[in-house]
């Protein structure tokens, strides 16, 4: 019967040790196999990973919270450029990668120091509400319409996104929408509105997923459906989407003739007068750094695993 008491003590001890165990000691950077980009990004010019213990994470000096869209993080761009900022400013950047809708919401509550998002209408609203002092152009890429190879809506060769969506609606061909309030979702809705179609859940062919770009592309691939994607995510995942092809927008941005498919990213430091605890000094430093000639060059030089350029610098110098 003594064993139960022993169990309680042992459990407490195990949990306590588990909780307080020091962080793993810094190990030399391993050359991670290319198949696992998200555990250890291989694209980054390998700064030694600096493990943080709970205590270190809680107490250590400088942290800048960057709330951004999944495309900038999942594409590997941030892992490529951020180490330069962290070195120069001696400040760690915590990346919260969510849909643009949630990213802006986080900024609106003052829970991030700086935002990198792509939904012009909501960015302008963010400025108007006084949540930031200024919005800066920083980079762009474009949206494309992708769909099944057999192309039931016959949009191959169409150059305008609006015409393509209209044809998809007329053909009642399956379409996957992000449906998550992201920047890509907002762009899609703008195009539907431009052709006076308001897709609803009652339409058999229209699927509002409420998911990220990756999941939406994967679902489209499974179901043989059309969707609108940002080119960066598309390029980073093409190998996993054997049933889909680009139908509007061409093979690179220079072949994209539709202005409505232009996808600019905005950079905004959260207004420190509005919220307590904003790291305004580093946020402004970050904005300056992002817009600097060197960083802009770095953004334009970033290539993904397949050797494609994903983002184009766009800052006014």
């Amino acid at each position: 019967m003594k064993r139960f008491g022993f169990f309680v003590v042992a459990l407490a001890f195990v949990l306590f040790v588990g909780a307080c165990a020091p962080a793993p000691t810094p190990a030399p950077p391993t050359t991670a196999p290319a198949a696992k980009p998200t555990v250890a990004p291989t694209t980054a010019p390998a700064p030694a990973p600096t493990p943080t213990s709970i205590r270190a994470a809680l107490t250590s000096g400088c942290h800048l919270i960057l709330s951004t869209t999944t495309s900038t993080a999942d594409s590997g761009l941030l892992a490529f450029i951020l180490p330069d900022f962290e070195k120069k400013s001696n400040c760690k950047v915590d990346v919260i990668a969510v849909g643009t809708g949630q990213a802006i919401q986080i900024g609106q509550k003052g829970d991030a120091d700086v935002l990198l998002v792509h939904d012009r209408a909501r960015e302008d609203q963010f400025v108007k509400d006084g949540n930031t002092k200024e919005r800066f152009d920083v980079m762009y890429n474009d949206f494309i319409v992708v769909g099944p190879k057999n192309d039931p809506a016959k949009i191959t060769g169409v150059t305008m996104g609006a015409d393509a969506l209209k044809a998809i609606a007329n053909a009642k061909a399956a379409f996957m929408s992000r449906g998550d309030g992201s920047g890509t979702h907002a762009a899609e809705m703008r195009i539907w509105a431009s052709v006076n179609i308001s897709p609803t859940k009652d339409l058999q062919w229209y699927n509002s997923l409420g998911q990220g770009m990756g999941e939406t592309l994967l679902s489209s691939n499974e179901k043989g459906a059309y969707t609108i994607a940002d080119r960066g995510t598309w390029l980073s995942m093409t190998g996993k989407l054997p049933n889909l092809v680009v139908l509007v927008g061409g093979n690179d941005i220079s072949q994209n003739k539709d202005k409505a498919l232009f996808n600019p990213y905005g950079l905004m430091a959260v207004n420190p007068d509005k919220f307590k605890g904003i790291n305004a000094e580093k946020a402004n430093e970050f904005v300056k750094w992002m817009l600097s000639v060197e960083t802009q060059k770095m953004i334009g030089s970033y290539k993904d695993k397949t050797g494609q350029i994903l983002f184009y610098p766009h800052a006014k110098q």
Partner: protein
Amino acid sequence: MDELSRGFFQALELIFSADPALYEIIFLSLRVTGLALLFSTLIGVPVGATLGLSRVRARGFITVLLYTGMGLPPVVVGLFVYLMLSRSGPFGALGWLFTPSAMVTAQIIIAFPLVSGLTMAAVQGVDPALRVQVRSLGATRAQEVWAVLREARLGVVAAIVAAFGGIISEVGAVMLVGGNIEGKTRVLTTAIVLNTRTGEFSLAIALGVILLGLAFVANVAMLRLQGKE
């Protein structure tokens, strides 16, 4: 199927690769869940035992509350903790949002009803004659509670095990309040979501296998300690 088998082998490969990023994720998962389990056990077991032994009028109502709490969707808990810890929320000054502390807080709220509710049920299942007997032998109130808990140990350990399983595999809350920050708040479950999102299915499966393995080892350890009587 291809993805499944590849995922399984990749899991083995990952475990033996000594990849520091992976171990960081595993340690953080264990640390966050361990701390949350520690706190919810320290609070939940006494609360559950007290409720199980007492004759308060409101016990029926409290029981319903606790059992309902077991069904709390983790995302809702996460959203609640997020709004509390947000800079524009009541506890924003703590600066806990997007840190492991926020994740521990959310997981305590998820685990507490499990620990206390199941402890209460276990204690209620103990033969009342035991208490009479212990008291007649001159035991103090604390000794009496201890005797009952010892008798109910199977159920109490089951409560802790259930809570452990509930929070180590939970993703909705830690994603929201932790933010899945690489090297800081990324745990096994959020890494699985990230890899699923980006189509790295076999890596996601590999991390899932590792998570299962951890849960298995933890449960074996807990059941061992519990004894076989």
